[in-house]
């Protein structure tokens, strides 16, 4: 009951507060002499957003960069020690390689599968298309931790001779083989790929929905014209459809890419970063919470930011280009 009241209060307070704030700012702007009212008003309207971004995004970022040059309790400077320590550690190198693998593989697969599903679903009868898309989109509604828990059961292993409750091992043992400890298969990074499957499974829906909308937006005349000119279906797809939806493809790719760089829940729940599957975000939590090393945790964040920023810039530019093309 108290929780409900709290939530209501928060909503009323938040929305009401924002209204009052804008009303007051507007009121002040209107008191200004004619020309100034028009000059100042836009800034007043954008002020709360800029202030919030500054307080919750820019300020913490600067603070984090500063802390990355300090020791574990942020009480003394250590120069670049955090960076050199981390980058020379074998564990962290493996972590970086894993993160790079995730980046190199997961987004591309998500886009490719999403595109394939969207294209194929487009050719189904409307009713079947709806059903197929809903099913594929469904995992998007499940939180990352729950996803990981579900997939843990799929990869679950029990000693040979005991009933296997994991789906994969139930199949494997039914076929007469010994159960396999899937998540411990670190040769050739197999277990990292098995973890990627979980992310791909959950993200294909998102990719499919956006790409499907884009495909439906491709003008039929262009397809017909190509077919009349003698293009086969493959050529129609790669030469006519894909170039016209390229902007959306890039958007989906980059969004997934940024998600993948921040990947945490799946790895944390399924392997805890053990068996050479660690990724940067899990390592960050370990440094901050388990090891209580604020300096190193900040360093990891800075490394992650340095990697993500160029991508974000690229995406923002891509957005602008798309806007301009309209």
């Amino acid at each position, binding site marked *: 009951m108290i929780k409900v009241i709290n939530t209501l209060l928060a909503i009323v307070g938040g929305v009401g507060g924002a209204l009052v704030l804008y009303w007051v700012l507007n009121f002040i702007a209107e008191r200004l002499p004619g020309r100034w009212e028009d000059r100042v008003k836009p800034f007043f309207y954008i002020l709360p957003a800029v202030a919030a971004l500054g307080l919750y995004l820019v300020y913490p970022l600067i603070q984090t960069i500063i802390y990355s040059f300090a020791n574990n309790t942020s009480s003394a400077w250590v120069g670049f020690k955090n960076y050199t320590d981390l980058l020379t550690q074998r564990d962290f190198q493996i972590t970086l390689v894993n993160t790079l693998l995730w980046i190199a593989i997961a987004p591309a697969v998500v886009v490719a599968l999403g595109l394939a599903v969207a294209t194929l679903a487009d050719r189904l009868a409307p009713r079947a298309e709806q059903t197929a898309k809903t099913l594929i989109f469904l995992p998007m509604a499940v939180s990352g931790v729950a996803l990981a828990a579900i997939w843990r059961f799929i990869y679950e292993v029990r000693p040979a001779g005991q009933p296997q409750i994991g789906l994969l091992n139930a199949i494997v043992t039914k076929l007469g083989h010994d159960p396999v400890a899937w998540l411990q298969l*670190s040769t050739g990074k197999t277990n990292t790929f098995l973890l990627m499957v979980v992310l791909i499974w959950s993200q294909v829906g998102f990719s499919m929905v956006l790409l499907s909308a884009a495909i439906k937006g491709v003008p039929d005349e262009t397809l017909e014209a190509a077919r009349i000119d003698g293009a086969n279906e493959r050529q129609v797809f790669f030469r006519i459809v894909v170039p016209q939806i390229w902007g959306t493809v890039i958007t989906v790719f980059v969004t997934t890419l940024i998600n993948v760089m921040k990947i945490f829940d799946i790895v944390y729940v399924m392997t805890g970063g*053990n068996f050479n599957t660690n990724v940067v975000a899990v390592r960050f939590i370990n440094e901050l919470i388990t090891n209580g090393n604020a300096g190193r945790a900040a360093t990891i964040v800075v490394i992650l930011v340095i990697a993500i920023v160029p991508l974000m810039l690229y995406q923002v530019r891509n957005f602008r280009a798309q806007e301009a093309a309209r």
Partner: protein
Amino acid sequence: MGRRKAIQRVALAAAVALGASACLSDSGGDSGGSSGTKSGDGNVEIIFGFGGAQSKGFQAAFTEWSKTSGIKIKFTEASQSFDTLIRTRVQANNVPDIALFPQPGILKDFVATNKMTDLSTQLDVSQLQSQLISGVLDAGKVGDKYYGVPISYNVKSLVFYPKKAWDAAGYKVPTTQAELTSLTNQIKASGTPPWCLGIESGSATGWPATDWLEDEMLRTAGPETYDKWVSHGIPFNDPAVKTAATAFQNLVLANGNVLGGTKGAVSTNFATAGNPMFSAKPGCFMLKQGNFITQSGFFPKNVVADIDNQVGVFYFPGQDANTKPVLGGGDLAAVFNGKDDDTKKVMAFMTGPDFPGWKDSDGFLSPRKDYDVSKYSSELTRQIADIGNKTTTFRFDGSDQMPGAVGSGSFWKGMTAWISGQQSLDQALSSIEQSWPS
């Protein structure tokens, strides 16, 4: 224009504030001050880190006593976040009268910053020393002063076995490590893997293996080397540690010695690792685990209901039959405010022979030698208490005393990587050594 200047000033002030706060924070100033409840007001606050049935039992233990003594206890349960709560409260100078520390590490941190009271001002420590199981008091010792006294303790050097199948097969309880090895080989020869082992524990995966290594360290290297290892007096990858790990490897991890092999051990949850022992045809015969595993919720329900007939226990033997080191833990009662007579009375009660603790079926063992064991509900608990009583050296769980980065971080991860085969023993030990905070 004046307004414009004002805006400039505000912006400047904001920038200055931002810049100033972006500097490094001081490492919290130290100031003495008010501690706990007032003296002689009949109120005492105790903070503790256990929950559920243990917390209920602990609180109930005071009901009768409070009536006669007139002292009211304020119980602050922090079962999810004892470390965080106690650290925050100490930082804010809002300390309780008594805290029950599950690990000596934080207690020693507070001793170093003069937050704790020397217990000789509260209790007759030398008398306690003779009354408590030898060595348990040392866990709360800093220099030559005692700051924490256990009100309950637990034993980890225990091996559980399925009594019926064990007796039917005619296995004998070993009294030395050599006998344990030959028993292991005997069971293996019969076609069943002798050991049950499960080290999976979510984000804490690996800890049961650290207990194994610690127990082996106590046996192969001895308590003095163990202490040096725990306090980083010798490096983590010292040859002594390697010897202990190899002993563990030969006994348990060798091919055919553990149910499911090493990969199985890594993916089996510690809580249910022993359950295959109680199948009609046991999947394994021995599980080394702390006495907590006899509480309900671990072994199968029908086994817990009939625990004395189903579960046998023996001491994880020493190198010879006369050396009996025991690895364990405990809840250390420590006093923040030493000037309150009410607190003294509570401490005397909790460390006295009449303190009933919580139910032994919920994991309570009294650290007092003179505790009336007939109060325990099962023969199994009495056997465990007897093993504790006969110890020659008690040592607190080492990983609990190491810095968090090691004890609840790289040590767990290193053991996991080693057992599941991602790292060699040398690699695992040296990566743990590398992670020790300087």
